[in-house]
């Protein structure tokens, strides 16, 4: 009896160990899995179809954000001033920028009615540490281009930039951030972001 229990315990531990090692999903498979999951939920959830933005925000937060490297995204958008910001300021920048990005993504998702996501062929070598995964959201009318830049971090792939309709988000925010920092410093940028997030949360 005892022997059997020990054997099953051992084999369970071995099995767990094996799945841990296999947890590295390919970047395009990861994007396909996450996008399909999110779009399926958006299409089937009545509250979201009725326009409940709060619910979409929660959805994006729980399903998409864990796969995003936020520090890199924020640091790239802030540019050379990132170095001059204190760790506390960096954290606040990250938090506010995250809210902004989630709302941007969620806002785009409110438009989903009957679309599907199609992956385009991955153009990357097997050992590339950074890849671009290209997808298209197809529905009525012209397909919407939606690309992701991912980097390998450990055994996982993390998103660090998103492209919608030809516009890379980090690039897009770079000049806005630079202008704000130029006129009001890093504190001014944080304040502006916080103010914008608060205002949008009210609508």
């Amino acid at each position, binding site marked *: 009896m005892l022997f059997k229990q020990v054997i099953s315990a051992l084999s369970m531990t071995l099995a767990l160990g094996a799945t841990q090692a296999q947890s590295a999903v390919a970047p395009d498979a990861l994007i396909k899995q996450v996008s399909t999951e999110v779009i399926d939920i958006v299409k089937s959830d009545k509250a979201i179809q009725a326009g409940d933005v709060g619910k979409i925000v929660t959805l994006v937060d729980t399903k998409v954000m864990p796969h995003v490297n936020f520090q890199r995204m924020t640091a790239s958008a802030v*540019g*050379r001033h990132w170095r001059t910001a204190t760790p506390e300021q960096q954290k606040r920048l990250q938090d506010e920028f995250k809210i902004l990005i989630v709302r941007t993504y969620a806002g785009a998702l409110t438009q989903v009615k009957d679309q599907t996501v199609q992956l385009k062929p991955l153009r990357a070598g097997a050992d590339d540490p950074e890849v671009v995964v290209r997808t298209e959201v197809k529905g009525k009318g012209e397909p919407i281009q939606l690309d992701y830049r991912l980097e390998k971090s450990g055994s996982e792939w993390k998103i*660090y930039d998103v492209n919608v309709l030809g516009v890379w988000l980090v690039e897009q925010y*770079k000049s806005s951030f630079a202008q704000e920092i130029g006129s009001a410093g890093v504190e001014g940028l944080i304040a502006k972001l916080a103010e914008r997030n608060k205002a949008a949360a009210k609508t």
Partner: protein
Amino acid sequence: MSLRSNLRTGAAGLVLLAAAGAASAQSANDPLEGWNRVVFGFNEGLDAAVLKPVATGYKAVVPELVRSGVSNVFANFGDGWSAINQLLQGKPVAAAQMTMRVATNTLFGIGGLFDVASDLGIERQQEDFGQTLGRWGLPAGPYIVWPLLGPSSIRDTAAMPLDLSWRPAALSHDDATRYGLSTLQLIDVRAGLLTAGRLVDEIALDKYVFIRDGYLARRRSLVYDGDPPELPESNDSKDAPPAAPK
């Protein structure tokens, strides 16, 4: 007397150029930022006062079927222009596909009212003369905002006469029809952008900068059909710390 007034005009011109130059320290591709911001402000005012309410009313009052019919007819004309531009850009396959779209929608979609081609899987690949010029190697040039017409670049402005000539309004014979069709197309476009406009209001820190950078990035991407070459890394991003393993 005339020499003095000439000098005064010249001085005024120099002051304007200097102002434009000072503003241009912000962004490489926007030497006309002074003028652009003024026109942008005017357009925003006009939009808030007239265009947006009319488009919102249009969306609320006119049934979806009628609105999509209107959109489809305008888009059908656009598809014809896209086909011509694809030929000019040396893309015969795409041109043939767009021609198929126009033919299918005009014949089976009752004059373009119904977008039958999309249901059949023939996708739209929008092209215009501005993109053709870009394809031929003409750089976009400085950003410029026009009253009512909105954001553009020097290259896209040069293409405007041709791009605007292909709309139903331009092909009509009397003034009344022309103005009517122009207005309808404008309202149709604005109604289509109502949600996007709200989103931009929420997420943009500086709406002018956001729309400018978005416009320029999108046009660059369109010229390369969604696959533009990487821009050279600016010195800024080299200072960003490498990804920290979580």
